[in-house]
């Protein structure tokens, strides 16, 4: 279902704060409801991006040129911690973000990225700090490259950094695989598990028969 991800060369914006949580990425009042998809991009990072009167906060990096056109974020530690809200990923995607490079991510946010064709890349903190410094020094003029096939990140000056990624996740992104269809191919295995588990742990499967 998700759009495949292979290689991306784009403007990268460093957001180096520690613990940027998913409430900060998308506020609850902007994401509530079943028809919010498509309206979330303008509310990503709302509390950082807009002043209380609703105008753009000129201090915030994604309000500045050339970073307004960023497709990659370089992030501080523990980016995407907190809530499981997938709308955090949707809002970043809707503002054009395709890859996020950081030293560590919230576990659920990290999983949600893959579900939407966004590549989260983990590199050590020193490398991240170096990338951010290089981008800032060129005031965003340089482009960052993320190559999933080769598993490399290339800085504006050409320094290449290899990254690790779960092979299943990698294949899923490269091919834009639909996980539900893949799992449903294992339907006989699921049914077989449930049949034997019903005998082993009947209290799991017959819940509520007395309630």
């Amino acid at each position, binding site marked *: 279902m998700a759009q495949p991800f292979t290689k991306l060369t784009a403007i990268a914006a460093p957001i180096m704060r520690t613990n940027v949580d998913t409430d900060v990425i998308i506020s609850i*009042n902007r994401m*509530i*409801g*079943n028809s919010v998809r498509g309206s979330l991009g303008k509310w990503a990072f709302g509390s950082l991006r807009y002043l*209380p009167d609703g105008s753009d906060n000129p201090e915030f990096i994604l309000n500045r040129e050339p970073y307004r056109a960023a497709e990659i974020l370089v992030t501080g530690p523990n980016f995407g911690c907190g809530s499981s809200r997938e709308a955090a990923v949707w809002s970043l995607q809707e503002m054009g973000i395709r890859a996020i490079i950081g030293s560590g991510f919230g576990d659920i946010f990290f999983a949600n990225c893959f579900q939407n064709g966004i590549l989260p890349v983990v590199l050590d903190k020193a490398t991240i700090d170096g990338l951010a410094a290089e981008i800032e020094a060129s005031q965003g003029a340089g482009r960052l490259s993320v190559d999933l096939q080769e598993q490399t990140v290339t800085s504006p000056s050409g320094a290449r950094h290899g990254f690790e990624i779960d092979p299943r996740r990698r294949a899923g992104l490269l091919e834009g695989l639909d996980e539900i269809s893949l799992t449903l191919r294992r339907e006989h295995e699921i049914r077989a598990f449930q049949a034997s588990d019903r005998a082993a742990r009947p*209290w799991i499967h017959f819940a509520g028969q*007395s309630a």
Partner: protein
Amino acid sequence: MDKHGRTLLAKIWDQHVIAEVSDDTDLLHVDRHLLHDLGGSRGLIDLKSRNIPVHNPELTFATPDHAISTASGRAGTIKTGQELLAALRTETSGSGIRMFDIDQPGQGIVHVIGPELGLSLPGCLIVCGDSHTCTHGGLGALAFGIGSSELTHVLATQTIIQRRPKTMRVRFDGRLPFGVTAKDLILALIGHVGAAGGTGYAVEYAGSAISNMPVEGRLTICNLSVELGAKMGLIAPDEATFAYIRGRPYAPQGEMWERAVAAWRTLQSDTDAVFDRELSIDVGTIIPQITWGTSPEHVLGVDGRVPDPADVADPARRGAIEIALDYMGLEPGAPIAGTPVDWVFIGSCTNSRLSDLRAAAEVARGRKVAPGVRAWVVPGSETVKRDAVAEGLDKIFTDAGFEWREPGCSMCLAANGETVPPGQRSVSTSNRNFIGRQGPRARTHLASPAMAVAAAVSGAIADVRTMER
């Protein structure tokens, strides 16, 4: 193969493996899938649009909690909240999923009702589209939050694909000092290891302070696992767990109960099990905790002082402290006690169970909420509400000037429009003090129920140890 004994995590995990899908990544059976109003109907609608039926509706349960008003009669439920409630009703009934609706016994915050109804059981794999699903680990369940796409996957297949996490064991040993609660233990741990200290791990809590802790306190401990970065937290089930579960509406009964308990007794880490990381904390050194900043790791003892960025050499850490202090409107180096508060919120999946309300009422009895402070008590479920009323706790709260509300998530995340006004300061028993969490520009301090009442009656952050009887 294994030279060492097995961890509790490994025992539960292995029991749920349907297939290995890649190195360290398994297709796991989901025993309980809990839906709530914020994301439940969306998943069901997604599935319907793909012409896929719900795989096991009898293992799926729903309740509205996030977006409904907690005012009497649910007055003022926002339009989106009404739509989500209506959609949850339609979609669950269309799929044969049991929904615990408002005003029914069983309705409540999804992480309060799971244990309370006996849906959450030891050794059970539980998922829910909510990060605080780790709460159910307090019963010895393997429970974790998932995103919307994973939620739809679970509805379609009754399975979840997961990479096996690393394991961490945290031992809390010793006797809890006066005024120190489960909430203080876990906040102190988060302060110690940081908000990313548990990322990538399943955390098992053990030690004498855990085995002596009532089950509801264990749920509070596990609830905050995600605030230290761990998607899963768990505690080995014991006699207290079995006694807690026995007789609950969905708990096994009769001969099946005996079989279940026999199986649950094996659910503990072997004495020679090896963890990737181990920590030990002497609870005797912990004092009541309160957060000062915008991450749960920004926490200190109530007798402490707000950090001063000038004392911090590392520029990144210094900058983070400056941003947090600016948002929170606090002076560097000031004592945290005595900081005036505008709001107090007692509730949330962290601290809204009967024992939490009893602890809060104990401090509130015979006292009054300070002038200028608004204080809410939001019970975690319809059953908690009814039990609290039967004990007269509601009367203690209302006599003291607290507002007694209907069950729901309410001001913990303000999804239902119940917000702390901009710039105002709240002491909250919830789980997140993030920027804007309780409303745009709201300032949140996390604490235990007793500490929250101490703040309400003092009109300022106060040390509950000077107030308890």
